[in-house]
């Protein structure tokens, strides 16, 4: 069988990024098909936390996450209830004076850029989250952040695309991307005016010269414990450890799910392909969490899973046109922020394909930088 149909856009990858791109493009009136070997949200998307968060590691990261969050807040108005979008806010916890100074810096950073945040001292921190241990210096509450059940949201984006005429091809493996379309394992081709490669780590196999590394993570989810936590809580030490080196690291990070379950993270390990649970780092990760929230130790853990964050060398995603194949667009390498930044990524890609100026300066994410 050979495919003769030609689409305006073919999106490779039905994770949250590909799904969001397909939704945007279909809404904009393009004929779209979305292809994925394993269906919607089965890769990194399924393994994530679903935290929609404004970050401040760099101005480029801030711009993309802040733009994305605004877009998510718009989606949230029409997302079905079972996507569990909840505006719970993030608390960045400062264990000591040094981290409290970091919280203040963060507070100022957000303030000058119009993002609401609020300093917490030892007392107000404990009032906000009574299960945090005593003696923590304080923290920063960012009330605008949210959580979402991302596999459902991704499926909803795909459904939205389908309602706007998009088609899906699942269960078939794409082996090649060219300037004019894609080719499946069996040699079948799909011709398309534009190809969006949103295949996460798999993008490396489809587009020569793309380098995206695996950053393995572990998550634990508990039984239902109503009101155990009410905000996404992240330690500020996270900033010191997460991006600083190539060494394995763990950080305290918990999330209240709409189901009343508690999600516990996080760990980072570079360049490991084995998805098996690593009990050594899982032990470090959970013990780190007990340091902040001792009562976590006695909760019942229902599931543990691992996932691979697609990490670029400069910690910024690849969003934009391929420098040598002008009809190929990259939307990959979102590391641990793919749920948040899927929204901004999709808007940028849709604007570029339509020939519009993106709403934010997209040059920091331009893939040309790596080729």
């Amino acid at each position, binding site marked *: 069988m050979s495919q003769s149909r030609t689409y305006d856009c073919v999106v490779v990858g039905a994770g949250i990024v590909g799904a969001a791109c397909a939704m945007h493009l279909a809404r904009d009136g393009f004929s779209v098909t979305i292809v994925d070997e394993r269906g919607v949200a089965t890769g990194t998307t399924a393994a994530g936390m679903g935290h929609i968060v404004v970050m401040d590691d760099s101005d480029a990261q801030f711009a993309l996450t802040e733009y994305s969050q605004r877009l998510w807040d718009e989606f949230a108005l029409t997302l079905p209830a079972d996507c569990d979008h909840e505006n719970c806010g993030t608390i960045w916890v400062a264990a000591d004076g040094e981290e409290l100074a970091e919280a203040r810096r963060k507070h100022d950073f957000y303030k000058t850029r119009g993002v609401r945040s609020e300093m917490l001292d030892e007392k107000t921190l404990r009032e906000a989250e009574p299960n945090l241990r005593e003696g923590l210096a304080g923290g920063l509450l960012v009330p605008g952040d949210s959580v979402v059940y991302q596999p459902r949201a991704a499926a909803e984006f795909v459904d939205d695309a389908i309602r706007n005429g998009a088609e899906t091809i699942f269960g078939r493996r794409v082996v090649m991307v060219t300037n004019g379309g894609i080719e499946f394992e069996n040699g079948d081709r799909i011709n398309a005016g534009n190809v969006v490669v949103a295949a996460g780590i798999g993008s490396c196999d489809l587009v020569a010269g793309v380098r995206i590394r695996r950053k393995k993570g572990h998550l634990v989810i508990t039984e239902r414990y109503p009101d155990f936590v009410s905000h996404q809580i992240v330690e500020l030490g996270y900033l010191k450890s997460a991006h600083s080196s190539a060494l394995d690291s763990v950080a305290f990070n918990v999330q209240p799910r709409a189901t009343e379950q508690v999600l516990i993270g996080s760990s980072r390990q570079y360049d490991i392909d084995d998805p098996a649970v690593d009990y050594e780092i899982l032990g470090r990760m959970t013990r780190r969490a007990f340091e902040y929230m001792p009562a976590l130790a006695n909760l*019942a853990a229902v599931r543990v899973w691992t996932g691979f964050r697609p990490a670029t060398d400069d910690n910024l995603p690849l969003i934009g046109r391929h420098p040598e194949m002008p009809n190929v667009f990259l939307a990959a390498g979102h590391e641990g922020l793919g749920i948040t930044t899927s929204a901004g990524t999709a808007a940028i890609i849709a604007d570029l394909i339509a020939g519009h100026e993106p709403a934010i300066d997209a040059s920091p994410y331009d893939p040309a930088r790596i080729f």
Partner: protein
Amino acid sequence: MKLLIDNEEFNVPAGTTVAAAVMLVDRPSFRRSVSGEPRFPLCGMGICFECRVTIDRVAHQRSCQIEVREGMVIETE
């Protein structure tokens, strides 16, 4: 053995499982499901987790796998 089920005192024979004890005293449910349905034990062998109750303040205990102890405090949902 004396035990407290939902703040009411009961006596049940030693060797009784918590599941059997809760059924003996006729509670409306062991737990409430995610959508609020009352649930009772199903498999009786620790597989299905329908019989979960709070025992001595620890939530989500499989009552069919645990025998009563003197002074045990059991809470259903």
